[in-house]
Structures are given as C-alpha cells and as structure tokens.
C-alpha cells in the first residue's frame, strides 16, 4: 500500500483522494468515481470508435483496470482521469487495429431513434452523424487528439500525457485533424441547416 491521501491530493486531484478511499474499502467512493469517470471514458471511446457497444466494453474494461490498480496507486505521478483516458485510448487503438483486419471502418452506429420525427431533432441527429462520420474518416491518432482537445476539452499538455507524445505533436495532430474535418464537412452547410440556422 503505497498510496496515502493528503490535502495536496484532494486539491490537485480529487479523484486520487477518492481512489484512496476506495482502496480502503469505501463503497461511496466507488460510486462517486463510477458516476464521475464513466461518462468521460464512454464519451471518448464512443467518439473514437463510433460504436456504442464497443465503447461500452472499453469503458467497463478501463474502469476495471482502475479498480485493480487502486491499492498500488501512487499519487503525484498522473491524474486519475489522465491515466483513465490513456487506458481508454490504448484500448480503442487495440480495437481499431483488430477492426482493420476484418470489419470495414465505415460500419458506424445507426442514428439514435428513428421515431424522433421533429425537424429539429432530425437536424441535430444529422449533425451528430455528420461529425461522427467525419471523425471516423480521420487517421486514428488525429481522431484521438481532436476528440480529446475539442470534444473532451482537455489541454494540450494533458493530451500529450494521454497519447504519450510531445505537446508539439499534439498541436500538429489537432491542426491537421481540424483541417481534414473541415474539408470533409465542406459542402454540407445547407444539408445540416447552417444556412438559416434558427435552432
């Protein structure tokens, strides 16, 4: 047991303090960590993989790894959320590599619920699909970097830690990714309702 929660941990990384409590047998800490971290892990996995079922498996697997490592967690080395994003990113990379050997990349999730017939909902769905389809077309590293930067809203140094690359490489990946997305989405302004958008 090398992990002791201190005031610094609570200030710097509240998740680390919760993880320490979890390792000491606190079920409430497990619940808080689950509620706070699962949506972030699932969100990233879903955006990178474009598949809810696979994202679900990745999320559960990543959290399981967190529970297992909790007793040996060393504070000060990395934030819990950064560590978790790294695990999710690596699990996604593994799945995308396996997919390349079999299922085509364009096999993406179906639109949410076809019964949603209101025009605004359809348009929102179309926009989400358009973004996801464009994301799926990006090279994997660019996609991971763009999702972490522009959807998860992380800072470049943290993304560098997650992807285990330099900050400059992150800047390059996100810039190239955004250029590619813009090109992929060009010409869809009218179809996506951006010409006279009132929503």
């Amino acid at each position: 047991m090398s992990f002791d929660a201190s005031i610094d941990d609570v200030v710097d990384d509240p998740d680390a303090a919760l993880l320490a409590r979890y390792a000491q047998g606190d079920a409430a800490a497990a619940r808080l960590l689950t509620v706070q971290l699962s949506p972030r892990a699932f969100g990233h996995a879903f955006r990178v993989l474009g598949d809810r079922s696979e994202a679900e498996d990745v999320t559960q697997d990543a959290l399981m790894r967190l529970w297992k490592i909790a007793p040996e967690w060393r504070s000060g080395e990395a934030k819990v959320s950064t560590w978790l994003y790294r695990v999710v990113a690596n699990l996604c990379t593994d799945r995308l590599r396996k997919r390349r050997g079999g299922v085509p990349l364009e096999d993406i999730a179906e639109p949410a619920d076809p019964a949603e017939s209101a025009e605004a909902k359809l348009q929102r769905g179309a926009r989400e699909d358009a973004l996801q389809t464009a994301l799926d077309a990006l090279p994997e590293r660019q996609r991971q970097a763009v999702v972490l930067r522009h959807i998860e809203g992380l800072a470049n140094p943290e993304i560098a830690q997650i992807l285990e690359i330099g900050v400059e490489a992150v800047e390059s990946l996100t810039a190239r990714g955004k250029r590619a997305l813009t090109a992929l989405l060009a010409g869809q302004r009218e179809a996506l309702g951006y010409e006279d958008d009132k929503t």
Partner: protein
Amino acid sequence: MTKPDTDMLETLFQDARAAPPALPDGLLDRIMADALAQQSNARSRGWRGIWQAIGGAPAFGGLVAATAVGFWIGVAPPSTLPDIATQIITGASYAALDDTATPDLTAFGWDIDEG
C-alpha cells in the same frame, strides 16, 4: 476552406460537448458491481486471506474441536491412559512400563551392540 466552414466545425464541436452520448442502460450498475467485487477481493487478501487459507469456518470449527478434545484428554484422561498431568504435578515417575523388563523392544538390540 472558408471561415463559415471552420465556424460550422466549431458549432458541431460545441453541440457535441453540450450533448455527450448517453450511457448505455445498466452500464453504471455493471461498473459499480465490478468496483465492489474488486474491493471485496482486495480485502480478502488481508486477514480474510489468512482465514481463507486455513479453510474458513469449517476448518476453524475442526481446529477448535480437536483442541478441546486434546485439552480434555489432558485434564481427565481415560482409565487406559497414564494420568500424565497428575504425574507431572506430583513429581511421580511417568514411565508406564519398566524399560528393563522389555529389552527385546528397545531399538532392536542396537543399544546393546553399542554398549
């Protein structure tokens, strides 16, 4: 690439941030179940690990029974056994048999060979 195109991308990012994908039904429950199961496993590696290693409650029950029987035999031995406890307390000899009376049973005669 035009300004409106980049603006549209920013808007799409904003929409995506504002509406994160909904978690699948039951996922939180499954993750929570994993967390509690793992917590329980980790705890069992402490004192519970030792408890499990000796076989848990059934083995402990057997251990207690054997100890109690042994203690009772020491306190109140059956008539066919020498009362060692009394002999120790009173200082009496607790050799039940006379060694010299049964020379054939002692070390198969090796003690005689070696003088």
